[in-house]
């Protein structure tokens, strides 16, 4: 079945582009240590808010040259009361490839900031790669927590029926009745401060999962209700299989194609939730990077106007969410040909 899905994905023009885009992004994130010229925590305080480095391949005599770049010098303009950056044309810094375990770097004293720097003089390009590792995996991890819970909850509720079903469903409905974003920020805000970044990361995964399971469990319950009266379930009951076994081995596997579709379609919403949370400062915290908390700097007008390179994480979120949506749509068309939402 997986082979068939992949074949169909490749046949669809949009889905193929989306697959390639995501492949490139994930490959870059995986090899971030190699591709990024600086580490996640590298910071050069004298280089705050430096614009993207200019890379030259034609030197001042109009001849081709090895690619080189100039450093920026920061000056304070007394008349206009603003900080200006100009190229330090005295020394050329040649770009070296495959040196010191990095894809590209500059010689000693030179700095290369492909996408400029942030307030602490950290390289935006490098942080995009390291931050992407968090932003692009947190959604998947949340799904892997959420789906077993939702499946089991919906399975038990639907299979047992009656009072159990009523109580369990009322509880799920209550969770769904709280606007999800409100619940999200409240849960995030009660996280104690002073956790290590790994602990915080894991707790945010759990919080994201806590928000989403109820809606999913409800749909599963509906499916279980219609499956549980089928003959093979009755025969399993007749030979004395335990209830737990019937739910997990006989009923839930029937929902597989729905689960796959629901999973691919909900990855983007978790990427968006995480970035929204971090954007507000309640998610992944500095000095760790995530695309959401990098965008936090875009909350200041001066940054939006004069330092547009700080907006790049937003475009990456957009591109990857779009790619996931296109893939999800195609998978749904393949696994669930009846539905025409496209």
């Amino acid at each position, binding site marked *: 079945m997986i082979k068939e899905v992949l074949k169909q994905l490749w046949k669809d023009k949009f889905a193929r582009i989306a697959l390639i885009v995501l492949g490139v992004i994930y490959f870059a994130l995986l090899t971030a240590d190699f591709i990024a010229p600086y580490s996640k925590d590298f910071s050069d305080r004298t280089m705050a808010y430096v614009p993207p480095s200019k890379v030259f391949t034609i030197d001042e005599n109009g001849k081709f040259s090895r690619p080189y770049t100039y450093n920026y010098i920061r000056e304070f303009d007394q008349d206009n009361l603003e900080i200006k950056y100009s190229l330090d044309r005295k020394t050329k810094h040649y770009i070296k490839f495959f040196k010191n375990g990095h894809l590209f770097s500059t010689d000693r004293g030179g700095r290369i900031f492909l996408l400029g720097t942030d307030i602490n003089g950290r390289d935006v390009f490098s942080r995009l790669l390291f931050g992407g590792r968090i932003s692009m995996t947190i959604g998947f991890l949340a799904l892997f927590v959420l789906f077993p819970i939702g499946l089991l909850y919906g399975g038990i509720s639907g299979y047992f029926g009656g009072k159990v079903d009523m109580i369990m469903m009322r509880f799920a409905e209550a969770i769904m009745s*709280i606007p999800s974003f*409100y*619940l999200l920020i409240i849960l995030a805000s009660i996280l104690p401060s002073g956790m290590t970044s790994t602990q915080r990361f894991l707790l945010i995964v759990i919080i994201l999962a806590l928000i989403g399971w109820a809606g999913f469990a409800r749909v599963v319950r509906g499916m279980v209700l219609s499956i549980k009266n089928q003959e093979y379930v009755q025969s399993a009951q007749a030979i004395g299989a335990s209830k737990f076994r019937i739910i997990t081995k006989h009923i839930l596997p029937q929902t597989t194609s729905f689960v796959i579709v629901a999973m691919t379609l909900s990855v*983007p919403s978790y990427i968006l939730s995480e970035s929204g949370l971090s954007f507000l400062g309640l998610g992944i915290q500095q000095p760790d990077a995530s695309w959401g908390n990098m965008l936090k700097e875009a909350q200041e007008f001066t940054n939006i106007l004069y330092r547009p390179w700080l907006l790049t994480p937003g475009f990456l979120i957009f591109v990857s969410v779009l790619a996931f949506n296109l893939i999800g749509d195609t998978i749904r068309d393949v696994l669930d040909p009846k539905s025409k939402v496209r």
Partner: protein
Amino acid sequence: METIKYIIKRILQTIPLLIIVSLISFFIIRLSPVDPLAELKLNPSVSPETVEKEKARLGLDKPIIVQYGKWAISFIQGDLGVTSTGEKVSQKLAERIPNTLLLTTLVIFLTWLVGVPLGIISAVRWKTPFDRLMTVLTSIGMAIPSFFFAVLLLMFAVKTGWFPIGGLTSPNFGEMHFAAKIIDISHHLILPVFVLFTISLAGLQRQMRANMLDVLDSDYVKFARAKGVSDNIVIYKHALRNAVNPMITLLGFEFAGLLSGAALTEYVFQYPGLGRLILEAVMKSDINLVMASLMMGAIMLVTGNLIADILLIVTDPRIRSRA
């Protein structure tokens, strides 16, 4: 008569739901290690008597179940306590809720006005270039993070100066006469409405298109066509009526999504709504305010679903007869 009975039954069902919601929210908030009165105690403009009154009202020295009981009783009586700045929570909510309702109802109205026709056209012209274009556009609309879009629009507003930057009213709002006030508010509303509109339009258009495609594929539409009924009548009289019904159920969900989505947009645009209120309250760990706005959000959501259900009874005779 049957309809009214059903509606009353449906209204009564929301009560246990809200009680469970309040229990969940109460315990989540009490899980936090913060002293609920810390801010209040530190605020010099709040008298010690107020703090004592709050302490007694919340029953902080008693077990958590008693605290919940105390909270529930005063909530029903309409006493929501004071914020950390000493203002009344109920007054604060009364300021903010209408603003959020204004924003969300405007957005829902506009998305329906545009999204439903676009969905119908897409379905009728299935697989034509127009339909393809709509699919691409809606994919894009669904992928933009709302806060990022808001930031970009804010950038646009700052650069061009065509739109006010955030807020709901201009500083000199108080001195304006009535017509100028309305113009001022609408001017401030354009950007936040546009952000939420773009994002929810995409989902709505797709849903409408899917429903319409389903209905157009059904036997009675095929029969009507075979009978020689004109295309317009088939689409607008037979198909549309049936395709719109599931959309009404969606109305409730849309409202829920908007309440959540609006929070970030309100935050970026500094819009004085419930979403930003709860955000500020959470950041200041203002427990009374968080609890009350959480409940208000839930009540609004449940009411939204209720209205959608009642509308459905009105429009769909099948449900009426079943009830």
